[in-house]
């Protein structure tokens, strides 16, 4: 068991050590940097103040530092406030996340210190999939997700969760399909569960999307959620019911709405409202157009469960908002409002 397995943020954690840029570049040259910045043997986060420094490092040092940043076994966070150091511009793109103030840095660090193994895997996954096709990225995400499903942080979250209550299964499909001529509307239809994304909903959504893939006469697909919330994320009642992580990966490789959404994306519009969580953010981001109601908000909660986004979000979000903002959302678990989502291009329009 690593030092990792704690979901509690009540116990005080050490202050996040922040290196100056010059010191960080120096540190990245040393061969022990991987041990020094690891959730197992050192610091779980590599935080660097990108301002204040005036010296320009040697080109060779900069190149080595850039490469080491990409390989670091823990998330790297750049603090970019005020005037940036000349060398900061050259390195900024390699950080896993960039923050604008010390409090924002602590927000990211809270997530990393609480779940260092998941935070590490997330940073590595986002670095890896930034060079991948959508299909490759989905495979990588599922493999990482499976790894964490077998880890201590997820086990701790599961053990602390109240037992799910058995609920009657409604006698109607989890996704309602409506068709008018060449237009199909797919309605997530479990408003009494805030459209929690269950296996039943996964299967029903895949069925509706497969119809549109097969039938080229369907020109427009509109994905919507019944009720006040588009989708509140994975169905927590089902978490921990996986047969085993290897089989769970095989299930995601067999039937995954993200793959179908991507195949259809030029034809897909998504309308979202309320608190969009996890899959409720990740799946819409595949659509070519996302329209949000003014009350919509967006967050990725998976790190808090010792996991990474697993509905395709590590593939769809970076394509809309970039790798660093995706990492910010996943590491902080914080919600962003609809205006922020629009300015980031997570959504394309706000409409009543």
């Amino acid at each position, binding site marked *: 068991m690593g030092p990792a397995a704690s979901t509690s943020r009540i116990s005080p954690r050490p202050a996040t050590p922040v290196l100056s840029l010059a010191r960080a570049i120096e540190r990245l040259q040393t061969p022990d940097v991987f041990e020094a910045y690891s959730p197992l043997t050192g610091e779980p986060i590599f935080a660097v103040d990108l301002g204040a420094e005036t010296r320009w490092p040697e080109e060779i040092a900069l190149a080595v530092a850039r490469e080491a940043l990409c390989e670091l076994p823990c998330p790297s966070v750049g603090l970019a406030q005020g005037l940036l150091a000349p060398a900061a511009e050259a390195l900024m793109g390699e950080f896993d996340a960039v923050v604008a103030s010390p409090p924002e840095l602590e927000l990211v660090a809270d997530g990393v210190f609480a779940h260092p193994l998941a935070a590490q895997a997330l940073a590595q996954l986002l670095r890896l999939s930034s060079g991948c096709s959508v299909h490759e990225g989905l495979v990588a995400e599922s493999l990482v997700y499976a790894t964490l*499903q077998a880890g201590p942080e997820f086990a701790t979250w599961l053990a602390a969760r109240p037992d799910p209550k058995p609920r009657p299964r409604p006698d109607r499909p989890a996704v309602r*399909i409506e*068709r008018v001529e060449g237009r199909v509307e797919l309605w997530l239809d479990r408003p009494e569960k805030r459209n929690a994304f*269950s*296996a039943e909903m*996964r*299967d029903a959504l*895949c*069925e*509706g999307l*497969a*119809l549109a893939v*097969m*039938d080229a*006469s*369907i020109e427009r697909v509109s994905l919507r959620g019944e009720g006040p919330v588009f989708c509140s994320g*994975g*169905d927590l009642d*089902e*978490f*921990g*019911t*996986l*047969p085993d992580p290897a*089989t*769970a*990966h095989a*299930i*995601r490789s*067999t*039937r995954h709405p993200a793959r179908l959404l991507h195949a259809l994306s030029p034809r897909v519009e998504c309308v979202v409202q309320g608190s969009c969580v996890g899959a409720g953010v990740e799946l819409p981001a595949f659509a070519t157009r996302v329209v949000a109601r003014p009350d919509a908000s967006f967050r990725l909660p998976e790190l808090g469960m010792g996991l990474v986004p*697993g509905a395709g979000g590590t593939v769809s979000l970076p394509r809309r908002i970039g790798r660093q903002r995706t990492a910010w959302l996943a590491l902080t678990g914080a919600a962003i409002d609809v205006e922020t989502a629009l300015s980031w291009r997570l959504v394309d329009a706000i409409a009543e």
Partner: protein
Amino acid sequence: MQLKPGTRIKSAVCATEMMVIQAPAGDADVRCGGAPMIGISDPKPERAIDPNLKAGSQIGKRYVDAAGTLELLCTKPGEGTLALGSAPLVLKEAKPLPASD
């Protein structure tokens, strides 16, 4: 009627439209609501649905015959019973998979 994968057919007596996923070789007597199904752009005959053959179909679902030689995907739902000859087609559910969380 000769069917091939991808062929689109419709009911002569209700709103049902289907896409052929798999078809038997040769002529297939595919019916809906008691009447032979017709090509997607054929004119609809003036004909009423058999009131005893109104099991209906659901959009996005697949329907198969007992032998598994014919498989149709419902692209538009209707009220007629789908059949190969006089044998009703049955709903084919996707293979169940558990949650992966």
